């Protein structure tokens, strides 16, 4: 037997179709590698996957939470996608989410007596504004000073984490249990349409709006231009500072809004949990990075992708309870998915072709 001879060839133009195939392949490979982890834990991989998805999508068990978490994931993905379209790595979604939390809770505690019809919009506006402001700081410093945005936004994340810590632990928002905040007033909780909070359709609408904003509007054109060639965009008369502040502020606003969705959209929260708890949700925002990248920064593709990945998080919990596996396996899956996706980026540049034997 003789092995086929293989050769690398540069990919000059990457078609959208090929890019989708490469993304799909990386997800499949991630599942295969993850199966090895499941086997190491002593579980049957197929059985585990069946448990994950049957739990996550069962209307009587996980479905409501799955939808809630998935839409949170969708929002943070949007917050990540838009700035990256200009080449800005918004790793600061976490911090903008924390600031959104501060905005929403500040309004709810200060104006808790207002009727729901006034209070809820105010909370959402405050959350968006706080997130937008925090995002814009990063955009401004990146464009005006040239500070590396990855380091910068991570620093802002940590600052925001400790800000919430100050407010809750021994601070003005401390609840009965000293490590949690006071509960939100009932009027602040998101109204539901059969158990589904109204922020869910809102998130889907936002991703559709984002799609049209990016592909059909003039600002979307500027964003794409600047992302593919910043110096050409400058020559064409675009203002990079304005553009950067715009995308980071909008991204931050969405991240801030996701905070309202997270805490007020799920009746089991309604307050800021212990530091490990809100940090866990904060770390969940990083999943938006992988969803955004796997979707090739397409806001519409992000909807099914976040439902898929979100169901893994919710369904992953069942592995702990039903199969007795170790907590946190869902995090391992996302890590593996990120790494396989990174490795598959190789195929954005090269393809492996078989060399035909010459006679």
């Amino acid at each position, binding site marked *: 037997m003789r092995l086929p001879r293989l050769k690398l060839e540069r990919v000059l133009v990457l078609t959208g179709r090929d890019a989708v195939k490469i993304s799909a392949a990386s997800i499949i490979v991630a599942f295969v590698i993850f199966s090895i982890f499941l086997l190491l834990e002593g579980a049957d991989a197929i059985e585990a996957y069946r448990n994950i998805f049957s739990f996550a999508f069962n209307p009587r068990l996980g479905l409501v939470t799955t939808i809630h978490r998935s839409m949170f994931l969708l929002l943070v993905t949007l917050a990540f996608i838009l700035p990256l379209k200009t080449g800005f790595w918004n790793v600061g979604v976490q911090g903008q989410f924390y600031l959104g939390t501060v905005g929403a809770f500040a309004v709810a505690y200060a104006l808790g007596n207002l009727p729901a019809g006034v209070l809820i919009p105010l909370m959402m506006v405050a959350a968006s504004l706080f997130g937008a402001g925090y995002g814009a700081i990063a955009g401004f410093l990146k464009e005006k000073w040239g500070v*590396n945005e*990855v380091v910068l936004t991570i620093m802002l994340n*940590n600052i925001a984490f400790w800000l919430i810590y100050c407010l809750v632990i021994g601070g003005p928002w401390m609840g009965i249990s000293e490590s949690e905040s006071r509960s939100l007033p009932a009027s602040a909780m998101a109204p539901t349409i059969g158990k589904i909070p109204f922020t869910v359709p809102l998130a889907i609408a936002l991703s559709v709006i984002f799609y049209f904003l990016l592909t059909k509007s003039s600002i979307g054109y500027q964003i794409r231009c600047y992302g593919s060639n910043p110096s050409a965009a400058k020559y064409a008369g675009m203002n990079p500072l304005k553009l950067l502040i715009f995308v980071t502020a909008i991204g931050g606003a969405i991240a801030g809004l996701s905070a309202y969705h997270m805490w007020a959209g799920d009746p089991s929260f309604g307050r800021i949990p212990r530091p490990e708890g809100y940090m866990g949700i904060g770390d969940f925002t990083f999943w938006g*990075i992988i969803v955004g990248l796997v979707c090739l920064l397409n806001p519409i593709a992000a909807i099914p992708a976040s439902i898929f990945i979100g169901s893994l998080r919710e369904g992953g919990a069942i592995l702990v309870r039903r199969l007795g596996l170790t907590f946190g396996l869902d995090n391992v899956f996302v890590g*593996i998915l*990120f790494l396989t996706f990174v490795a598959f*980026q*190789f195929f954005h540049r090269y393809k492996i072709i078989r060399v035909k034997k010459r006679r």
Partner: protein
Amino acid sequence: MWPFIARCLETMTIFLFAALGELWNQRSGVLNVGIEGVMLLGAASGFVTAIHSGSLALGFIAGIIVGGILGLLHGLLSITLKVDQVISGMGIWIFAMGFATWWADKYSGPLPASLSSPKIGGMLSPLFFLALTLVFIVWFILYRTSLGLKIRSVGEDPSVAEATGINVTRIRYLSVIVGGLLGGLSGAFLILSYLRVWSHIPTSGMGWIALALVFFSMWKPFILLGGALLFGTIWQFGVSPEVIFPGGLGIPLGVYRMLPFIATIIVLMIILSPKFRRKWGLAKPAALGLPYVKE
């Protein structure tokens, strides 16, 4: 006062190990933003190994080796597969967070008291002196040896370096692995000497500060030494401000914990202000962050 100073110096040691490794691999043109992840997995493997084997030394060795493997992985992705270095580093970081949570969080808690190492004055690990020596060694290698010349030229212009007969791929692999080894050592030191307790994500942003330290050291080991001392002190002050201000002046603890992160942003802004920007741009390895594609 001595306990506080010793703790500052240990924090400085953590920053120094990680940042020296990062400085080395950035000098060869490879940016590893996943250094927080390297530290985290170095810490996790060091901690778990030490608990199972009952030996601190084995813990350190495990941390260093795992760090080296992650460095190798970053090399594989960014040098051989030519993936964007930021994406690759992010991947390593996110993977490390997930993996460490699953693998090490079940060991949450302190190290057994039997696992103790000799400390100077009861507080300071002798590895502090290793870190100081390493600053000198890294400086010596980079500026006084032919290997260092190769590393620096690969970081400035890989195609010219290749033309003069330097194997760019080999030098870059060597550099990312050294970066990983030192990152792993930093993580192991963090958990086995400084913290001695595992809790969820114990690195808590230190790796990112180490990365920022490399940026504003202008890629020079001795400036890095000063930066590590400064940030080691700020970090430690953030953790226990009551040593300097009894009672913390009534300011909430969280405000002090923000200080190192705020200081990082301020210093990054100073280094990029019009006065320093030119100098900084000149010091920056010209090929930093760019994959090398042989044409």
